[in-house]
């Protein structure tokens, strides 16, 4: 059964279900739900949660626990991960398995607490001092975060190397349905061996001698040998653990490359462009290291352009360029500092590369023209109703005049006309309000003029129909039969006519007022658009996004 879970909490539970019983952490936004969840759940599982005095201490507690053979995890966000780098380097050097979650936020420095992907270099290039690599898993959904967190423990144990789960503020904070049943009581992978190397205070045996967990190799030759041994492990990780996802790549001329949160936005952009026949596909690296270089190379068969999309100033783009090796142009588009790129922005980048004219997609941007069309249509319908109701009223008045019970009927007819006219007035007011609301929305574009014309024509129709209805009422009132019967019902008819006139006037005032306001607004917005267009023409490019090549 699927349940709705926040990314951070789902990751914590997934870790517990994968056998993690030790967690050491320090508070930092946006990952606090992980330590909070662990502090509640681990004691229930006979495990240990400890809030360390610093990220530095936390990662060293992880080193101790991992060195003693336990499945252990820590989590943090960018500035905290920077603090952990010393410990991570030691952990790698001493070959201790552990899982480190980084819910990336905007940097550098204290940066922001919004989602970012600006720790790509740090994660994929080692991060701390020395020559090393770690498997970096980048989930694109809460479900994938659960699956990858569990796999992370196996990968860590398999190679005696830390594994990074690289999310971002959005993956951590977002709630999505996840299947935790599948994740429950996940056994370690079958190929994993006993940790006979662990410093757990065991009595030394031939198979499991005295443990020395250490990253110090003072003899240069010994250290080089150690590094070659580590490198052999990294080569194995690169060979065995590379993960990626391909979407619509078979005929893709434009290949989007994006991971994590950005890949979801890229997917939407890709689908929109596919609907218009643009041959665009998405390659989503799931492991950032090892980077799916071969998968990128495969797309060269159809690719004319690559577009790398990131929430950074462009970091993964380097790996794509290394993979493409100059054979095709590799472009970059991204936002940084916690800004998240939109589908419309990505579509616009794809349009540029595809050489097609921009299309304002209704689901990407607010379509003012469409809204105005709808408003005009509604106004037209209301005008029709006004006409029809007035027609009916006229007819009924006529009938009343000619009936034997003219007195009663006239009264009744008058009441009905009054009610109908009230409704008309109200509806016209509402229509005016709707027009106003539509006009007050910010995305007023070139369709304003067109829409204004439509309103004009609708208003004309209203006028025309009111004229016609008025004529019919007049006809009815001026008929010989009416004249004859008028004497009997003079007073009521007089009242009725007065009321009708008043109500219709009120309705007309309402609609004219609304239309007047609408025109004022349209005029003002058109002026604004002109001014914006002028300002845009003077500026050479859009400052919000960084564009490459």
């Amino acid at each position, binding site marked *: 059964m699927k349940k709705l879970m926040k990314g951070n909490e789902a990751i914590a539970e997934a870790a517990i279900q994968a056998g993690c019983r030790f967690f050491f952490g320090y508070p930092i936004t946006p990952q606090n739900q992980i330590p909070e969840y662990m502090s509640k759940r681990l004691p229930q599982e006979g495990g240990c949660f400890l809030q360390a005095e610093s990220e530095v201490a936390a990662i060293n507690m992880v080193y*101790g626990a991992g060195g003693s053979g336990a499945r*252990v995890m820590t989590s943090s966000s960018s500035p905290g991960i920077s603090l952990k780098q010393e*410990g991570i380097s030691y952990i790698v050097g001493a070959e201790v398995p552990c899982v480190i979650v980084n819910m990336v936020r905007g940097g550098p420095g204290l940066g922001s607490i919004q989602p970012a992907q600006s720790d790509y270099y740090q994660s994929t290039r080692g991060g701390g001092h020395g020559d090393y690599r770690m498997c970096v898993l980048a989930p694109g959904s809460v479900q994938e975060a659960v699956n990858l967190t569990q796999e992370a423990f196996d990968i860590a144990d398999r190679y005696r190397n830390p594994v990074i789960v690289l999310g971002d503020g959005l993956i951590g904070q977002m709630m999505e349905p996840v299947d935790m049943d599948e994740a429950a009581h996940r056994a370690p992978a079958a190929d994993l061996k006993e940790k006979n190397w662990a410093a757990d205070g065991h009595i030394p045996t031939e198979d499991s001698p005295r443990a020395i967990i250490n990253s110090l190799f003072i003899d240069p030759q010994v250290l080089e040998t150690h590094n070659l041994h580590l490198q052999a492990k990294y080569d194995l990780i690169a060979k065995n653990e590379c993960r990626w996802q391909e979407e619509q790549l078979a005929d893709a001329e434009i290949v989007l490359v994006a991971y994590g949160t950005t890949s979801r936005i890229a997917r939407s952009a890709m689908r929109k462009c596919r609907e218009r026949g643009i041959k665009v596909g998405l390659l989503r690296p799931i492991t950032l290291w090892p980077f799916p270089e071969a998968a990128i190379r495969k797309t060269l068969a159809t690719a004319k352009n690559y577009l790398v999309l990131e929430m950074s100033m462009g970091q993964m783009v380097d790996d794509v360029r290394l993979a493409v090796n100059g054979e095709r142009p590799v472009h970059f588009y991204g936002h940084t500092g916690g800004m998240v790129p939109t589908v419309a922005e990505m579509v616009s980048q794809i349009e540029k590369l595809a050489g097609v004219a921009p299309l304002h997609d209704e689901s990407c941007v607010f379509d003012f023209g469409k809204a105005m069309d709808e408003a005009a249509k509604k106004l037209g319908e209301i005008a029709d109703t006004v006409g029809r109701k007035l027609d009916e009223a006229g007819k009924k008045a006529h009938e009343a005049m000619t009936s034997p019970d003219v007195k009663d009927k006239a009264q009744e007819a008058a009441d009905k006309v009054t009610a109908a006219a009230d409704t008309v007035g109200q509806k016209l007011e509402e229509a005016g309000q709707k027009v106003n609301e539509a006009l007050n929305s910010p995305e007023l574009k070139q369709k304003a003029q067109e829409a204004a014309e439509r309103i004009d024509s609708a208003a004309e129709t209203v006028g025309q129909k009111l004229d016609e209805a008025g004529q019919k009422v007049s006809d009815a009132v001026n008929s010989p039969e009416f004249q004859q019967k008028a004497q009997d019902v003079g007073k009521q008819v007089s009242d009725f006519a007065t009321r009708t006139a008043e109500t219709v006037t009120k309705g007309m005032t309402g609609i004219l007022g609304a239309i007047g306001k609408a025109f004022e607004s349209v005029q003002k917005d058109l002026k604004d658009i002109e001014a914006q267009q002028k300002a845009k023409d003077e500026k050479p490019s859009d400052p919000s996004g960084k564009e490459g090549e």
Partner: protein
Amino acid sequence: MAVVFQKTKLLTDKPFHYCPGCTHGIIHRLVAEALDELAIGETAIGVAPVGCAVFAYDYFNCDMMEAAHGRAPAVATGIKRVCPDKAVFTYQGDGDLASIGTAEIIHAATRGEKITTIFVNNAIYGMTGGQMAPTTLPGQVTTTSPYGRDVNHCGWPVRVSEMLATLNGPAYIERVSVHDVPHIKKAKAAIKKAFQLQMEGKGFTMVEVLSTCPTNWGQTPQEALKWLQDSMIPTYPLGVYKDITAQPAAAEGGAQ
């Protein structure tokens, strides 16, 4: 012929790399003997520091982990939480523990982390070549205080045992010296007691051992032992600073 003395089996056969006259070797042996006599040595887990004792994992004949500079108490915390029944100890110098690792030692102590810390205080950075330490005495000449430690410029020595004794977490804190045989015997008793209380789950235990560094003090081994006695002990008074098992009067600690 009867064997009247032999090397403790808790030390490996590897020759110490320490300088002539350095008292690290004595302290290593005291720790190994204490663990051995308590029959907890074979399954003990030690954490080596960064400093002169960085190669401690080569000497202690039990499971060992090498920590980053100052982080040994955090590493030992991780180990102890996974292996709560084992004797876990850190062996740290004064630069490691009292400078870069102050946060880790204070928090391990205040958590009452059930580990034993052997804190070797020789008032100088030995391994890196004799720089000023947090424990360097006022006026003491080092390579980074060539005019003598000026307390107006770089402050006063840190008294770790006194400081940690103010916390509730520690069960036992004593400062000892190894400058002569009677003091060496006292030092061993203190180390043994610390491990014993750890195994009884009483809390954090630490023995601060005043130690010599003839090489970087620029003295002969004999001069160094005398300098320890005459110059260091007045700044770092010996004695029990915390003992939750002692009678109230003795628990107050202080200089002997």
